[in-house]
């Protein structure tokens, strides 16, 4: 079976999206964690920023990017005719 150009385009877009979201995931976890001591001197709504991020903020970011991925991929499926039920 030969993949069409459209299919390759779909996969490329998926990879781009995945990479961008993984970069956000990486920054909000590991970059934040690495600089936790520096960030602890900044305050956010009563919390030291690094404590807030580790206890809540990063988790909220995870939720948002997973939600965004599901939504964008659904749109992409429909746009490229690869959604289930389209065969």
């Amino acid at each position, binding site marked *: *079976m030969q*993949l069409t150009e459209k*299919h390759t385009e*779909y*996969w490329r877009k*998926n*990879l781009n999206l*995945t990479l961008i*979201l*993984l970069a956000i*995931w990486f920054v909000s*976890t*590991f970059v934040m*964690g*690495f600089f*936790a*001591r520096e960030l*602890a001197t900044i305050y956010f*709504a*009563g*919390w*030291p920023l*690094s*404590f*807030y991020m*580790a*206890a*809540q903020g*990063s*988790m909220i970011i*995870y*939720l948002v*990017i*997973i*939600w965004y*991925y*599901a939504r964008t*991929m*659904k749109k992409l*499926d429909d746009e490229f*005719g*690869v*959604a*289930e*039920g*389209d*065969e």
Partner: protein
Amino acid sequence: MMGAQVSSNRAFYNQLKKYYTYYTGGFLVFLVALAILEQLGMPRVWIGYTFLFATIALYAGIGIMSRTADVAEYYVAGRRVPAIFNGMATGSDWMSAASFIGMAGALYLQGFDGLAFILGWTGGYCLVAFLIAPYLRKFGQFTIPDFLGARYGGNAARFVGVLVAILVSFVYVVAQIVGVGLITSRFTGVAFEVGVFLGLAGILVCSFLGGMRAVTWTQVAQYIILIIAYLIPVVWLSVKHTGIPLPQIVYGSVLQKVTEREKQLTADPKEKEVRDIFRQRAVDAKARVDGLPGTWVEGRAAAERRVAELKAANAPLAEQRAAEKHLADFPRTEADARRLWSGQVTSNNARAAPPLPHYEPFYSAHTDPVKADAERDRKRKNFLALILCLMVGTASLPHILMRYYTTPSVQEARKSVFWSLFCIFLLYFSAPALAVLVKFDIYTLIVGKNFADLPGWVAAWQKVDPRLLSITDVNKDGVVQLAEIVLGQDIIVLATPEIAGLPYVISGLVAAGGLAAALSTADGLLLTVANALSHDLYYKMINPNASTQKRIMMSKILLLVVAILAAYTAAAAPADILFLVAAAFSLAAAGFFAPLVLGVFWKRANKYGAISAMIVGVTLTFYYQATTQVWLRGVFGVTTPVAEMTWWDIAPISAGIFGMPAAIITMVVVSLLTPAPDKQTQEFVEHVRYPSLKGDTVVTLGT
């Protein structure tokens, strides 16, 4: 046909919504009824029993209603679990006794550094969502070894996958059964071993008759109980200290008060006095260790002499008994003495330390800036390593990944990851709040009180288990100092209802919640092990002609065998729960992540690469654990000093940090050195990448 299926899914969803709404309402009514009975004078033990048996009977009822002999129903719940319900099921599958009971306590004791567990156990779902769940769902068979077998052509990869899945899940399930035993015995007063087997019965009624279908619907029910049980006490405690019932939003201000209080307590002269006493005890113990063997010989002789003297002088009986007890407790050998006294040096030094600043990342108490920097650096490294191991482990644990086979479509699988994390989030963003609120309560309401005025729960828990809570008047001033309090990790969640001043019925509810968390995780894990054996090993490799009836029969028998084996191992209680859990994560991360992710994203990956990656990853991780973890070192008789076996100061809990990259590198190198996979495999990869593909000839959906 598609339209008909969508509307039947819709109807099914509405039906489920109705059932679980009634169920939640019924449960709340049950709670209120028990609260009223308590006010009318129902004894506490009865409340404990009622919770235990009512909830297990409930799970059994769901289990029996969900019994099935259909293969797709038995292995993947008919592949029609709506995203949000699969999210709840994954949530309770995911949150184990360690999350429910231990997590807030770990955060209390470790402050910022404990948040590694919060981050690691949630952020892993990003990897599940982006790299694994949608592709596994498209593949659409039953187990993780199924995927490995199909992608890496044949039984060799499947077989190694079966071994890894069993190793990981078995280690994890033993930890869960230990948790079940602890909760059952603590709240009903039965012996730990009896508790283990009672819990086992609870696990089996959920999964035995209906496999994945029964496990799914009991897990949803268990999620509802555990989240109610967790949130009620936290919300109440928040009202007590801030007047606002949203602990997660308002505890920032409480954290500031805790920080101020820490500073006061560090400078307080009475606190210093107590800490100095412990420092002196540590010095004394050190002197005894340094004086070995002479100190041991003399100490023993002195103890014997004293017994003889008292006897000869006909001293009061109580004094004689005390002297005899002292002699009996005296270390029997020089080696025992060294172990005991070295332990005393460490524990007394720990108690001589001022309170840990709760918010401060990577805290060091060293005054020498070079040493302090080194310690902070070590803590930061381990913090990041632990997060990575837990995250990648999350995306590699078979009992979690299996859940994404059960959704009706790829799109639902993606949505379902969101709901899973949301359900987990509800508990995980409350746990740090709980830790801070309890800390504030203890720092302000317990510390500084007269011993005579301590609330009743202190004495009650002290009696249950002094390792959970013990307060002793070390400097004999009649007032509680913070340094006089020793807390065990589990007490934070277990005692919160009493700290918040809630009726006993809520304590029973918390126990039921902990039990639900442990049972639901154990269910999922047992099913994973039994399926790996019955589906992958027996049906796919030994007897491919087995009838569906025989396959399910086989799975049920194996479920029973594995369950009993796990309970037997748990009753022997080999190591602490947290280490077992973390070990399972590291092993899974090192074993499965590379073959699963590269299998989808890199067409060139082949079976030689995958098999060697799994073997190298798991072996290296296990080697590191075996040579650096206290209990495993004992088992394998490792005598080389730990310092020599430790690489870059990484703690054994994060052993996967070495296994993971080793597996990825091995996989890439070996794949490139061996022939590329055939055209069929390439087409398989394309098949899983697209939710649907025109002209696709590959069929993988299992029946």
